[in-house]
């Protein structure tokens, strides 16, 4: 992992896009069991737009500009529930990295992920346990916050954070949905893994892998 400047973040987002698209059908399948089967499509459309936006940025771009550009891509192309949530999250990440040139410290990513998850909660008004992406994101943020107090490599921290998110996403199976389309199914949704919690874990894993390569 080299020094993580804006360009590296942009490249990592392009890698995230690739991973999301690879999981399109899987995410649709998860959403289809209890929702409307489009989550993988919405995420793919959003991340394709992000990729186009990233490719249009100069190499000298700042991390905050990268995140804001990703936010705008989601805002213009996606819609649905997930569009505004990721728009808000990327915009919050831009806010959390204002004036920074590099994001080499674990604490940078604690701030980024923390800003993201809170902006999602403010906009979406879901609670923990409602069976949404918050249920994989909050445990991940808690995890990386603890790691940041212990020192260690950023790469390892991002990887183990993504793994925590994935485990938490799997654990959403037991939850009863309270927000979004799946909420209408109530108990019938128990046993199904939440699509948005899963895609969030894929995004975090994409960051970890993408930044390694950058």
């Amino acid at each position: 992992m080299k020094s993580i400047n804006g360009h590296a973040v942009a490249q990592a987002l392009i890698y995230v896009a690739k991973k999301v698209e690879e999981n399109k059908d899987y995410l649709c399948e998860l959403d289809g069991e209890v929702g409307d089967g489009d989550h993988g499509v919405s995420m793919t459309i959003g991340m394709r737009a992000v990729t186009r936006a990233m490719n249009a940025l100069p190499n000298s771009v700042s991390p905050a500009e990268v995140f804001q550009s990703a936010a705008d891509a989601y805002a213009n192309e996606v819609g649905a529930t997930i569009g505004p949530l990721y728009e808000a999250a990327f915009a919050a990440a831009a806010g959390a990295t204002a004036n920074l040139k590099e994001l080499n410290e674990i604490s940078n990513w604690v701030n980024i992920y923390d800003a993201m998850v809170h902006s999602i909660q403010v906009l979406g008004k879901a609670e923990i346990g409602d069976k949404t992406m918050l249920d994989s994101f909050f445990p991940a943020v808690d995890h990386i916050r603890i790691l940041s107090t212990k020192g260690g490599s950023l790469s390892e921290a991002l990887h183990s954070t993504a793994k925590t998110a994935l485990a938490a996403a799997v654990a959403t199976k037991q939850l009863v949905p309270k927000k979004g389309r799946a909420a209408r199914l109530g108990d019938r949704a128990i046993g199904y893994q939440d699509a948005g919690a899963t895609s969030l874990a894929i995004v975090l894993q994409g960051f970890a892998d993408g930044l390694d390569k950058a």
Partner: protein
Amino acid sequence: MKKLINDPFEVVDEMFNGFILANDHIVKPVGKRSIARVKSPIAGKVGIVVGGGSGHLPAFAGYVGQGMADGAAFGNIFASPPSKPIVEATVAVNGGAGVMYTYGNYQGDCINFDKAQDQCRAMGIPVQSVVLNDDVLSAPKEEASKRRGIGGLFLVWHIAGAKAEQMATLDEVVAATQKANNNTRTVGVGLTSCIVPANGMPTFTLPDDEMEIGLGIHGEPGIKRVKVRGIDSVVDEIMESILADLDYKGSDVALLVNGLGGSPAEELYVVYRRVKQICDANQINIRFKHVGEQVTALEMAGVSVSLMRLDTEMHDLIKNTVVNTCMYKKN
């Protein structure tokens, strides 16, 4: 996947393009995914903007034209449009009397329309929203505000559009639309799922001998799965749920038997026949009726039934207003 499409990710743009070309006497594009009546803005008339995910035609964009909506924003398949095309449509239809948004109660639509509303208000355009929630089975009566909007919008928008054609004020149009929504109930049943093109697979799978009761318009599962059986007894169950939720006895009503996309019109008439029998038995007077595909879920097979209770004002609005929209006409 058997669809009349090219690249599944281009479907919405190509559909939008074809829709504009096929309806150029009624609507014009005002953005990449937004349309307005050719005549927009109409000075002094409240502009009505509708929208939501694609895959429901004629809803929502098909209702732009005389007597219903003035503008619409297209989302991706089954996904609310972002705020941008909603704002574009709002600006295009604002004739000085303000703009009303009306759409189904889905989280994505609420978030994106609210965002657009904030932006337009900040631009000085008075905007009000009426969110529709006619789907009886999507939440219990005590939590009616959580119910989603489905086929009933077709009836409610007759009232909204007619009121706006009369050059009523924004508050009056909102009040009439809200009243119509409060008096409208819908229940749907699905026999098959549908395929989101960019997904390529059925959204859910339903055994050959089962159907879903209480489903929405996105190929999502309903509230319960039952064995396929004679449709009369299914219609009985639909009507029971509707009549238990609102007192229609002795009332005048407007009625829609709505095809979800994959069921032939012949079958919709078989359903209407039974609905009429039940209305007769309950002294419900059908003053306006429509049988056809209005609020669809791609190629999903199934039907929904909507009843809207009419007072004198609503009765006159729905009976006396000519509708000439892209995909629905009424003399």
